[in-house]
């Protein structure tokens, strides 16, 4: 299978007993605010998992997460490699018109993604933005299903309803890629609220681009999370460009992590080209979040290409592009693995072949997956069926044509009028009749 070529996490260092204990004692570790106090008092009463009345597969929010494992550098490298090769293939498919809409790639952000995902427990929730294929892969989604979503196929991660920007995988707690800048942040905050409400030990990771820190939803969310001591880590993917606008041109305080100070929130900045550093920083941030201290982490990443596949990035100088390429996390890590004797060139080449094969298999899977049938168009407007929901295709009439047909009417407007009423005004010689008929009172007994 496609996924079998991706190494699973192998632990070299488990979570310390102390960190687990901390998670368990989160309520008492909380600050002294009135609402937090009451929340922790009531927590014990509601600490049992409750089946959701929505009846969806969300019931086991509270299963204690297994100990987080420090992923080996080689595993992180192979995870990054998968993201790189997958994104390259996605970009090619886009130019071959196999993928529609927009396509924002994670090229250059592989270390950030691999490190972030490695620090999360499988039971933690991830909310992210529209540049999220890599996150779907790193959370464990099948590459074939991720590619199938790009291809708009039935087996896609969102069954072909979302596309590149809207990947969702409940099983792996990828709670959505979101296309509106900042839109995911209030949602993620609310997910943390739900965890807190039920006394769970999971946490939420909410990633965003650097440009997102200027939108109101960012500030409203951080304030609410800090007020309510929610278990959430906000992560800024700072690739220094919001589309074509640099951080300096858009943010009065370009040290974005410092914005946490406004909410008395802990924060840090970390090199996003080193997956180990990202993983460490995220693990720390998550442990703080689980203890009731939401956290803002700024990860300094690289965007190797344009904002989206169709953007040639002409706003970047040659020097800037060269600088970005020099910070390519994948080639840096490959060099380091060889330099440190962790991997040989031959191993790197073998992994690359395996990964290319896996991506090719994912692409074949996507291409073979059926397109969604048109009669499924109205399947997902509402979760609870409701009378009078409009299920009309463009041009469909609001009401079925009456079955009674007046003998005097032309067949092309069958049944359009009650029996005995005016003639079809397009019928020969009947135009005058039409206008006359309008002034006449309706006949008795014509009601439907």
């Amino acid at each position: 299978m496609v996924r079998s070529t991706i190494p699973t996490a192998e632990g070299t260092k488990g979570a310390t007993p102390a960190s687990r204990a901390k998670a368990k004692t989160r309520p008492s570790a909380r600050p002294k605010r009135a609402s937090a106090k009451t929340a922790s008092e009531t927590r014990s009463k509601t600490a049992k998992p409750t089946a959701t009345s929505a009846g969806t597969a969300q019931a086991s929010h509270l299963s204690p997460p297994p100990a987080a494992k420090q992923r080996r550098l080689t595993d992180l490298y192979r995870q990054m490699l998968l993201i790189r090769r997958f994104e390259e293939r996605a970009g090619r498919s886009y130019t071959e018109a196999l993928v529609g809409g927009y396509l924002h790639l994670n090229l250059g952000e592989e270390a950030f993604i691999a490190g972030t995902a490695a620090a999360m427990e499988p039971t933690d929730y991830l909310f992210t933005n529209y540049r999220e294929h890599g996150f779907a892969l790193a959370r464990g989604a099948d590459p074939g299903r991720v590619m199938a979503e790009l291809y708009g196929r039935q087996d896609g991660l969102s069954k072909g309803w979302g596309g590149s920007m809207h990947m969702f995988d409940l099983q792996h707690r990828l709670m959505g890629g979101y296309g509106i800048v900042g839109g995911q942040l209030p949602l993620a905050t609310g997910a943390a609220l739900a965890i807190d409400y039920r006394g769970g030990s999971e946490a939420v990771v909410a990633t965003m681009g650097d440009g997102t820190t200027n939108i109101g939803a960012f500030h409203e969310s951080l304030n609410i999370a800090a007020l309510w001591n929610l278990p959430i880590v906000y992560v800024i993917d700072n690739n220094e460009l919001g589309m074509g606008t640099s951080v300096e041109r858009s943010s009065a305080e370009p040290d974005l992590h410092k914005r946490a100070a406004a909410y008395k929130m802990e924060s840090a900045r970390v090199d996003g080209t080193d997956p180990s550093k990202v993983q460490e920083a995220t693990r720390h941030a998550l442990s703080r979040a689980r203890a009731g201290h939401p956290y803002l982490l700024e990860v300094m990443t690289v965007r190797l290409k344009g904002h989206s596949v169709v953007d040639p990035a002409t706003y970047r100088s040659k020097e800037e592009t060269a600088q970005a390429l020099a910070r390519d996390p994948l080639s840096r890590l490959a060099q380091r693995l060889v330099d440190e004797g962790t991997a040989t060139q031959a191993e790197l080449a073998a992994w690359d072949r395996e990964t290319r094969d896996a991506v090719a298999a994912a692409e074949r899977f996507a291409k073979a997956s059926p397109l969604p049938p048109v009669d499924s168009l109205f399947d997902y407007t509402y979760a609870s069926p409701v009378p009078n929901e409009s299920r009309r295709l463009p041009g469909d009439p609001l009401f079925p044509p009456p079955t009674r047909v007046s003998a005097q009417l032309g067949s092309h407007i069958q049944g359009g009028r009650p029996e005995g009423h005016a003639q079809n005004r397009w019928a020969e010689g009947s135009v005058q009749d039409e206008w006359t008929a309008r002034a006449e009172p309706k006949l008795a007994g014509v009601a439907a």
Partner: protein
Amino acid sequence: MTASTAEVGAAEIGTVTMTYREALRTTLAEEMRRDKDVLLIGEEIGLFEGSYKITKGLLKEFGPKRVRDTPIAEEGFTGAAVGAAMLGLRPIVELMTINFSLLALDQIVNHAAKIYGMFGGQVPVPMVIRTPGGGGQQLGATHSQNVELYYSFVPGLKVVAPATPAAARGLMQAAIRDNDPVLFLENLSLYNSKGEVDLGAAPLEIGRAAVVRPGRDLTVIAYSRMVPVALEAARQLHASDGADLEVIDLRSLRPLDRDTFVHSVRRTHAAVVLEDDWLTYGIGAEVSASIGEGAFDYLDAPVRRVAMAEVPMPYSKPLETAALPQMTDVTRAIKDTLAATGFNNSRSIRHD
């Protein structure tokens, strides 16, 4: 008067008379007792007990975890409710008035309404957004709007607009138990209105209109505040002109129950639509278009709409009064329409 737990929660049975406000408050309390996943989120709903006291006594009974006061951050806390709903809670958001819902528009329209469909039906968003509309309180342009249309336009949302205490109760029960985001439109001028409520009645069905007064001569279609106005107009015109008006309460703005009012118009041959929003592109425009398509050949007169004047609402009383639909505006439109049908000349023919 203090709200004791007993007062909020008295488990009465049978039919009682209560205000629209009381119907909302008691239903919220009952639903919170019934389902631990139901929580309230909003500005000033706890300590302050609600700007319009709908949540009076609820903080005391349910505590700050389930009656959660928020900062003034509509986008943030409405979105947080959406996120909590995605994890299976059933949050009820209070937006102080529908004017402020515009601050949360992105979370309601781009997120609450989209999440179920956009991700292929993987996660529902079971939540309620309660918010009052209303004008006529000299609150000026930004506090007197009725923008329920913005939400009624959006697939994925359900929008209900109860006009009576009984409908407020029945639709609130339905909205809370529904698995989709429901915008629950209240109205400032209805909060003190009284009506009979059958406490044992089943929840109402979202997506259904109701014929609240049967009649033969003309169909008046209304929702929210305009339903009592329609009923009063029907009473007056019956007394003065002998007109027998049918009144339909839409109750649900999305989905819109076209069948109920179109079938009514096919019987009465005339319609007037009452709405508290602006005329052009308003709810009434959709209702009229539906009648045009569904009852074209049955109409004896053009469909008439009575709506707010299309101005930013002025503060000064005479201007405000002129901008809002008044009873005389309603009766005039109905009389005009009846006259256009040849009401007084043709009654014997039409009603045989």
